[in-house]
């Protein structure tokens, strides 16, 4: 909506420039706040503009209004007005829910810098509050899955079996793409399943719930919220926090590829040097 006005267009340019990742975060925050204020002004303008009001007359909560302002600045060019999608650029966000927004924006995957096989994890452009506001906006206009409140892991002291159950579920549902150690893996034609080592509880939960990019959706009927928490427990406690018992280095848990590399780079190299020394003239 703002983007249709000359002021909005200018704002977008302004925002893109200011949000270059090299900028320090606090300066960026200030800029975003200013942008938000200006966008709000733009919003007020469109609210008074005739015709624009007709489609959506549901009242948005305060947080959602903040989110809408952010959306209209950063997301609208691909996801379209009212998140209805733009053919060939970005899908509609109606029905994806706040969980999806929090995953995509919270991990920096959205906004994308360019169209490519898969959106990559990068430094998020928005802070946590802004992510929540964006999520709230998308939730209010389209509905969809939401992250539950409260802890997303099981307490192993009270429920020690959760770890093994989570491991079992992880092997059935997750290892085929994310690999046995959570290191990630390749998919077809340049797509990939990301590593889970940097993923937070919220991100894992949201990813299962919403199926971002090419990941299948694991709805609450298929994997219950309790089972999801067990999987997250396994990923965080076993794969992320447990130090590997078999050595100082785990070779990235990539399996036999790195092991084979190590035997040549370390084993054979060391021993060839030893052989050179042994046979050399003293």
């Amino acid at each position, binding site marked *: 909506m703002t983007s249709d006005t000359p002021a909005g267009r200018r704002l977008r340019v302004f925002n893109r420039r200011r949000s270059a990742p090299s900028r320090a975060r606090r300066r960026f925050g200030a800029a975003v706040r200013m942008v938000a204020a200006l966008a709000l002004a733009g919003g007020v303008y469109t609210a008074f503009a005739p015709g624009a009001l007709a489609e959506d007359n549901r009242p948005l909560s305060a947080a959602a209004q903040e989110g809408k302002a952010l959306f209209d600045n950063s997301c609208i060019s691909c996801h379209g007005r009212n998140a209805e999608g733009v053919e060939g650029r970005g899908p509609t966000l109606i029905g994806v829910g706040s969980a999806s927004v929090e995953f995509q924006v919270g991990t920096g995957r959205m906004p994308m810098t360019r169209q490519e096989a898969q959106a990559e994890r990068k430094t998020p452009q928005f802070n946590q509050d802004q992510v929540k506001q964006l999520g709230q906006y998308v939730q209010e206009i389209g509905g969809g899955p939401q992250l539950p409140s409260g802890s997303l892991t099981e307490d*192993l002291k009270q429920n020690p079996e959760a*770890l093994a159950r989570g491991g*079992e579920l992880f092997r*059935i*549902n997750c290892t*085929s*793409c994310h690999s046995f150690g959570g290191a990630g*893996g390749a*998919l*077809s*034609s340049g*797509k990939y*399943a990301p590593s889970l080592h940097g993923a937070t509880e919220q991100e894992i939960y949201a990813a299962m719930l919403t*199926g971002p*990019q*090419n*990941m*299948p*959706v*694991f*709805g609450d*009927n*298929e994997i219950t919220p309790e089972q999801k928490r067990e999987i997250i427990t396994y990923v965080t*406690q*076993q794969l992320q*926090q*447990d*130090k*590997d*018992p*078999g*050595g*100082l280095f785990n070779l990235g848990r990539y399996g036999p590829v790195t092991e084979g590399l190590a035997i040549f780079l370390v084993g054979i190299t060391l021993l060839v040097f*030893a052989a050179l*020394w*042994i046979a050399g003239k*003293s």
Partner: protein
Amino acid sequence: MTVTKDDQHGSGRKPVDLSDPRLSRFEIVKEGARRDDIEIVTYESQFAGPNTKAEKRVERAIALLFLLAGLLGLVFLVAYIWWPWEFELGHTNSDYYTPILGISLGLALLAVGFGILSWAKKLLPHEVSIQDRHEAMSTDEDRQITGQTALFMVDELGVQRRPLLRGAVLLGLAPLGLVAAAPLVGGLIKSPHKPDRGEKSPMFNTGFNADLNEGKPVRLTREDGTGVRPEDVSVGGQITVFPGIPGGATNEFADSPTLLIHLRAGDAEVARKAAESDERNKGAMWGNYVAFSKICTHAGCPASLYEQQTNRLLCPCHQSQFLITENARPIFGPASRRLPMLPITVDAEGFLVAASDYRETIGPDFWERP
């Protein structure tokens, strides 16, 4: 250390009289070597004289290496006995048990190795010896004798002259030879087509065969045996299902794991069109749900990397890719055959069931697959 420079060449010299008491030990060794056609050309100490400073220094370094090895060995023992070793979750001291064992023992052995090597390289005299190869073949006479002896043996047995014996030996020993092989071959050999459950050969039969379920259609179940309802799988979701019979999710039915996918409406339309225009997959879809065998037709790995936007299914072992919306035909990689489709429907209680067993053969390809 003896400092010797051998300047006498030629092997035509008289043998040394070993009973000569003036002979040094080294001269006896040299004489022994000579008898084995070895000429010790150089055997000289690496040091200018006995007990030089340089030699002492090397000795000290080697001694240090051995002492270091002993110390590291003790470190190994102490760690082996007293370091906490039982597995604990998280980042604990027990995670360093294996590294400490490896590093202490590894360095101890390396110290011993370098100690021995330094001893050999730095302390022992430098040596150049020349040994003759005995490439000369046996003499013609020897070869003749050996050959004639072998032929003589054959002659004496008279196999040539005694055809009856020859035939009898052949006829008698051939079956005995087979007897030796029979238990191994006979015990191991097993028909792949012997029906073990149901009536068909197990090669063409999975756990979804209704015969295994008293003729009733077999339910699609989770790994814990609970049934799956259509609403359990979200749009764009997938679930691995097993035949709902006893042991259906175990490796006893290693051919049965199936991937149930809930397609998006648009994709489902494409998939339905493809399935309906195919003779074998006609009517196999139910609603927007499709079920394909998870066992790759290439090498049998579970092809389970489902990409919900491109509707491709990737096998992680050899990267075969199957396009779900086109009857799971292979579109990349070494697989040459599409994934078989399981005909599904919903029973009276609302659970997904297999309308029939697979209509195509499951798993990796083989010679007699029809």
